């Protein structure tokens, strides 16, 4: 197994509260890792640390053998449960945002042919997530499911090496959620993504993931429960990636 992303002896502490302790993980390229665990077990902390939004107290994270820079960057995309899209931009503008930022450092806006090209690329990406008819809607005019589709399109156009999902479908209706599961599986396959998804829905975790990680505390001190952190207590490989793709 090639260690595409590897976490070495990772600790996350807030003050004297230990959230994660001694996390050692190797994640293979192209895998779809579901992270589950009880509330407060540090699922989201783990995601934020991998994302670069927070720094681990101890330990290192290596992406392709190189340590991750200490802030968020374009190599790691993210979809949060809420607030992932920009309310002041239309679907198309939201999706073009990454292209504009990458190609126009000063104005973060494109003009002329470059703009047309970015627009076409963004429209194609929106088509791929099923928003082909909603290019000019603002997020406030969209349903929750559409907003999450948009958030995914917005992240994918940057071609991130890892896509991090923080309970992306938690706020959606069951029907919509099933549609989104189909969509994310499809995109994962088509784009050859590496996905790490935090969820509290066990069925979702097992239905989508090629690997399911359960975070929980190994030890428990009844007098000072905050002094022991969580780590991966179960690590189940469900199926090799090829099975799903078939």
């Amino acid at each position, binding site marked *: 197994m090639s260690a595409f992303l590897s976490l070495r002896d990772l600790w996350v502490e807030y003050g004297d509260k230990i959230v994660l302790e001694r996390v050692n993980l190797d994640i293979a390229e192209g895998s779809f890792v579901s992270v589950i665990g009880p509330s407060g077990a540090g699922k989201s902390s783990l995601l934020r640390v991998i*994302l670069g939004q927070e720094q681990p107290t101890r330990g290192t994270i290596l992406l392709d053998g190189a340590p991750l820079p200490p802030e968020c*960057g374009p190599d790691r995309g993210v979809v949060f449960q809420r*607030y992932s899209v920009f309310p002041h931009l239309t679907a198309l503008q939201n999706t073009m945002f990454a292209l504009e930022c990458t190609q126009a450092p000063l104005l973060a*806006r494109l003009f002329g042919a470059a703009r047309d090209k970015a627009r076409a690329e963004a429209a194609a990406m929106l088509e791929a997530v099923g928003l082909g008819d909603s290019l000019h809607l603002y997020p*406030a005019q969209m349903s929750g499911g559409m907003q999450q589709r948009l958030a995914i399109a917005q992240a994918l156009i*940057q071609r991130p090496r890892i896509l991090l999902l923080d309970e992306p479908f938690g706020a959606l209706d069951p029907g919509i959620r099933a549609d989104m599961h189909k969509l994310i599986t499809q995109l994962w396959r088509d784009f050859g993504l590496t996905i790490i998804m935090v969820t509290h829905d066990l069925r979702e975790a097992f239905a989508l993931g090629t690997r399911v990680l359960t975070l929980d505390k190994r030890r428990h001190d009844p007098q000072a429960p905050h002094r022991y952190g969580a780590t991966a207590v179960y690590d189940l490989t469900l199926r090799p990636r090829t099975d799903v793709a078939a």
Partner: protein
Amino acid sequence: MRWVNRRMSKGDRLLWGGLPILLLLLAYVLAAAQRHAANPADKILPLPSGMVQAMSALLFERDLLSGQWLFWADTLASLQRLGLGLGIATGTALVLGLLLGALPPVRATLGPLVTAIAVIPPIALLPILFIGLGLGETAKVALIAIGVAPVMLRDIAGHVAALPREQIVKAQTLGAGSWQILLRVALPQAMPRLFQALRLALGPAWVFLISAEAIASDVGLGYRIFLVRRYLAMDVIIPYVAWIALLAIAMDVVLNHASKRLFPWAEGAAT
């Protein structure tokens, strides 16, 4: 039906909203008529006819001394001061508010200074401004700008700082740097708030304008009111006050409509 559930139609709102104003006007006219019945030369509560007479001289006739149409010269001078002061305040509030709100090092550096300036009552600075900048236009414009800028600035900074962290993180994962986040994420979302802050700043701005004009000026709406006060000229003061109210309402309406038209995405989110 419970009062909390009563919805007023547009016609009803117009009717009920106009009623207190009409009643107040009626009460004034009755009181004025009563006083004039007792003393035809009463100056305290002039009749509408008296106001028209007094104002027409200011509106349509050149002043013998200065050769100007005083009412229009006053209006123009006041609006110019107000516009300049508010313009400077708005620009400062936007730029510094964005920087303070979005960049923690700038907030740490300038935040305490802004707070310190904001707690000074601006009128207390007026003598300093008059001494430092002279009695001309600069001091009056400066008073308005200093008076309203800190409040607007803190409002914008607070709004920008309160943007969901997720948005800022997302922008970074899409390749945006600090400058691009300021330009494309923070600035557009600060704009509707800036319009609201400007609307709220209009009230204090008028206060500072009238104060500055009352103390040292030779033209302006506030100057005229305080000048004719010496002659108990209520027939000029009342129309001037009404005119100021009308101008203030017009500015508020224009800003509100402009904000709604310019930032359709903020509809519903801002309320």
